[in-house]
């Protein structure tokens, strides 16, 4: 990102002159309190929002210059994990994960096989036929992570993936991210949990009121 600004029509500045670079294979925290611009930064990286000005390059593509018809191709290379999981309540665990493959052109048999494989990596292979509603918050988050991974994206954007979870479940989820990182996936994780950034010694980009700061002011 180079000198990215995001200002809403009401003149509220969500991001102000953000310049940063994240390298392949890095694990980067985007840290800051609620409303500091973490989520909007991830949304811009994911092309769910456009910056008011500035340049954003993801996987070598200037995303501010591509049309919406090309956005979907970029999104196949990005896995997104949301704090509210965004799972389909009327489907099973496996169906939720396989959905990400089915809608991107994979056949049902292959989708099912890959979904099971990914569920094994997040420790939910035994729950494949369960309804999403039968899972705990932590398990649902793991399903969301599995869905984000199933297309083998090189980049994962996670927005407060542990925000609604207890300590043990947070640990379980962070172990999954750690494992992904060790396998070479680039992870960008937005969090307001300063404890998380202390426990996991990775690069941290601090945001305060939409600006990048060297370290948070307590």
């Amino acid at each position, binding site marked *: 990102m180079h000198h990215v600004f995001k200002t809403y029509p009401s003149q509220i500045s969500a991001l102000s002159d953000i310049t940063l670079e994240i390298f392949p294979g890095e694990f980067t925290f985007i840290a800051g309190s609620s409303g500091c611009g973490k989520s909007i930064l991830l949304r811009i990286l994911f092309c769910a929002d456009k910056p008011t000005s500035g340049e954003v390059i993801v996987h070598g593509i200037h995303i501010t210059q591509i049309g919406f018809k090309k956005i979907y191709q970029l999104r196949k290379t990005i896995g997104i994990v949301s704090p509210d999981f965004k799972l389909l309540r009327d489907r099973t665990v496996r169906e939720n994960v396989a959905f990400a493959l089915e*809608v991107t052109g994979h056949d049902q048999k292959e989708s099912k096989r890959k979904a099971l494989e990914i569920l094994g990596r997040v420790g939910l292979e035994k729950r494949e036929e369960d309804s999403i509603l039968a899972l705990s918050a932590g398990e649902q988050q793991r399903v969301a992570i599995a869905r984000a991974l199933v297309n083998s994206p090189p980049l994962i954007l996670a927005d407060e993936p542990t925000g609604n979870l207890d300590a043990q479940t947070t640990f379980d989820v962070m172990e999954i991210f750690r494992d992904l990182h060790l396998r070479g996936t680039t992870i960008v994780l937005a969090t307001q949990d300063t404890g998380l950034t202390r426990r996991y010694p990775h690069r941290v980009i601090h945001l305060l009121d939409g600006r990048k700061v060297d370290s948070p002011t307590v």
Partner: protein
Amino acid sequence: MGGNLFSNLITIGIISISMLIFSTFTLLAFNLANFFNIWEDKIEIIAYLKRGIPSNEVGPLLEKTHLLEGVEVVRYFSPYDAMAFMETKLGGQKDLLEGIQPVILPASFEIQLKKDYRNSTKIKEVVTHLKKIPQFEEIQYGQEWVETFSVLVHILRLTQWILGGLLLIAIIFITSNTLQLTIISRREEIEVMHWVGASPAFIRVPFYVEGLIQGLLGSGLAIGFLFLLHRGLFFYIPPSMQTWLARIPVLFLPPETIAWILLGGMVLGFFGSFVASMRVLKYK
């Protein structure tokens, strides 16, 4: 899913009613135009001769009339022929003519036109030429009926298309609204599709297909119902009217018109879904 099915059925029902109204007018206009064409085909011009024309002038006049552009056959009816014709027509009541002398009836030419002159425009051209012949007292061809029918067919066609235009807007509006509801009810699924990289076509095409199917089913039901009404016409009307109607063919819509109505329904359904997807399915 149940909610979607219900709203889809409602949409199909409303499209069906709209297309039924349009198709009914189309059918009426079609049959009236057809009847008009059949009737026009049988039109003959009667040219009444002035009284006192010598009999040796009739032959040359006949020849002159026959040479007019558009005239195929000319037959001469003397006053006696006219009387005999009336007696035949009256049948058992021919006594009504007792005491009436044939000489009071005018002689006439019965003129049959060539096939391509048997329409209201060409008939008038021939009549204009006939009127210039001084030996003719009066020219008759059922002009009031020709004009009335022509206007009636024109009005029906105009009504058909004005109504069609209004119904078209209604169908697009209804389909669009139903599909918006469907899209909104599936917004979570659609959002996930956006997130994982489903193409815009993958997301939109099913809704376009849904609109097409709604339009096709709606117009198909309308045609089917109209067909049953058309068939029912001959089962439930009194036998005396059936006899009279049998002389007038009441046709159903021809296959090409049916195909156009079905296609029209599909296009309207598709357009409705297109409008809905443009309004609601913004890429996120």
